[in-house]
């Protein structure tokens, strides 16, 4: 199949998925009997006020129309205004993306590179002491809840030792650096365990393939086999895994941003949860799903470009 026709077909396939996402969001917010108007106005609201807000939110329209309102926002990103800040949500998202990326992008790059290097070493020494030790160590690290890491690191490195800022943010470069270093370190610590675990499995899956046996039989050294043969093939699933994480970078790190008062999208989402800011939660749910679908599409296309076998299917 031609690559372009594949891309177009794949692009068309995202439409039913986006409609499906909107249907689920519609079911959660509009069909469960949840009344945001009553929530916003509190207990002492008059029936007239409730009706007013319901009309503003479009909740008095027929259900089909309410569904299409959600579908529309998924394409226009016109999410209305926040209840607490009264700002336009699309503006809030635009403002929050930068600070979020300042934290998530460096930690994503650092942790991915480190994890790939570590997993090559671990796979090279598979079954030996260093492999077992590191695997158990990472499983151990993954068994500690993320909140405990954040609390401890913030208290120890920022409060006790005073090496970093406890919280806050500056919008200019390089002034923001002291604020983001500790959050970046925490994010790397949090994501390196799952990364290594996955990459190691991927590399080990390849090590038992026939082509590796052939390469060894040719008399190639284990180093050449690992770096030139195995790694090249393993990079395909690793690439997929890495690309699919990108939408989450834009969404930011929920708890970390909230704890370090970084004005990114993650912190904004957590604040919206605290404040019961219904439009913001709904907007972030739609936005994150659409971003996820788009990057899934990119991953699939990349996959076919990198691995010609896939296109034949």
């Amino acid at each position: 199949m031609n690559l372009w026709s594949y891309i177009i077909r794949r692009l068309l396939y995202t439409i039913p998925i986006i409609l499906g996402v909107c249907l689920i969001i519609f079911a959660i917010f509009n069909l469960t009997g949840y009344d945001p108007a009553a929530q916003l106005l509190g207990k002492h609201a008059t029936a007239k006020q409730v009706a007013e807000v319901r009309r503003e939110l479009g909740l008095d329209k027929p259900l089909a129309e309410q569904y299409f309102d959600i579908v529309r926002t998924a394409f226009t990103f016109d999410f209305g205004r926040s209840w607490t800040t009264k700002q336009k949500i699309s503006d809030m998202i635009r403002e929050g993306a930068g600070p979020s990326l300042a934290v998530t992008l460096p930690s994503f790059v650092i942790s991915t590179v480190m994890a790939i290097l570590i997993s090559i070493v671990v796979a090279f020494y598979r079954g030996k002491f260093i492999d077992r030790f590191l695997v158990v160590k990472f499983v151990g690290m993954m068994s500690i809840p993320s909140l405990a890491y954040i609390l401890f690191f913030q208290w120890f490195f920022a409060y006790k030792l005073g090496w970093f800022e406890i919280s806050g943010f500056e919008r200019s470069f390089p002034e923001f650096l002291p604020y983001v270093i500790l959050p970046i370190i925490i994010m790397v610590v949090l994501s390196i365990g799952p990364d290594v675990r996955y990459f190691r499995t991927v590399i080990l899956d390849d090590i038992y393939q026939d082509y590796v046996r052939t390469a060894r039989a040719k008399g190639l050294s284990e180093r050449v086999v690992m770096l030139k043969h195995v790694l090249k093939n393993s990079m395909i699933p690793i690439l997929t895994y890495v690309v699919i994480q990108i939408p989450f970078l834009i969404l930011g790190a929920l708890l970390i941003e909230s704890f370090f008062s970084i004005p990114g999208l993650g912190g904004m989402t957590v604040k919206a949860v605290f404040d019961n800011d219904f439009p913001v939660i709904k907007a972030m749910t739609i936005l994150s799903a659409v971003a996820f679908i788009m990057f899934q599409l990119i991953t699939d296309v990349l996959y076919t470009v990198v691995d010609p076998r896939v296109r034949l299917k």
Partner: protein
Amino acid sequence: MEKKSKSLWYHAWEGLRRDKVAVISMSIIGVYFLLAVLTFTGIIGSDWSQAIGDSYLAPGSKAFFGTDIFGRSVALKTLKGVEMAIAIGLITAIISTVIGVILGLAAGYFGGKTDEVLVWFTTSFSSIPYIMLLFAVMMVLGKGTQTLFIALGVTSWPGLFRLIRGEVMRHKEREYVQAASALGAGHVRKMLKHILPNVFHIVIIQFSLRFQTAIKSEVILSYLGMGVQGTPSWGTMIDDSKLELARGVYWQLSAATVAMFVLVLSLNLFGDSLRDALDPKLKGKA
């Protein structure tokens, strides 16, 4: 002479028994379950809500693990927290497993339109990031412990659905299923009695995974004020400590984190051993 052949389960059990890590982690999980039953029935830990001393007593002879803001024993709260952790793990894992298995069986077995619709639904469902879905569900259902169980359960089944569906598709054309049809078995019987036991190892492995993810997710929800109310949980204890650390009160955080760490680590290691023992594809590999 007829000799009964040894089943996959028998081999798995033999493998697990020889695996030292598996035996140790299984025992630890067993102890946690026992503690959960004991606290649930009120045999131990029922007096957790009583003050045993001043506010924020440091660990020592008066209070083994120190006290919290209300002078309650942190040790007892941690112990009582076992009950909630096991309940969260068990109930949410059961909910998500039941949904994942039923939908996965239906999609894989019937194929065609049923499959298309279910796959579309699952793909849409899992396109919404887990944590956002969790927030949305918790928001509309309102706070509370029951909501927590439901929200964690209904949001975490797509992974199991995909695995079961794929495996059932491979199995449904096999001879033993055809033999069952020839003997007049209906759809439900073929699915539950014949195919399900053959894919059940996936269910068990995924169950142990869901169990520990749920326990970890509870901490995040506690931070957001959506956690367990009225009874101690490790999540709320860790969340409480955000105001305590600056005063040097580290014991609530440490006690709850260590208690959770040991349980989640054991579940992790046990899950790995279980996969090695049950997944025939990995057999013979290092």
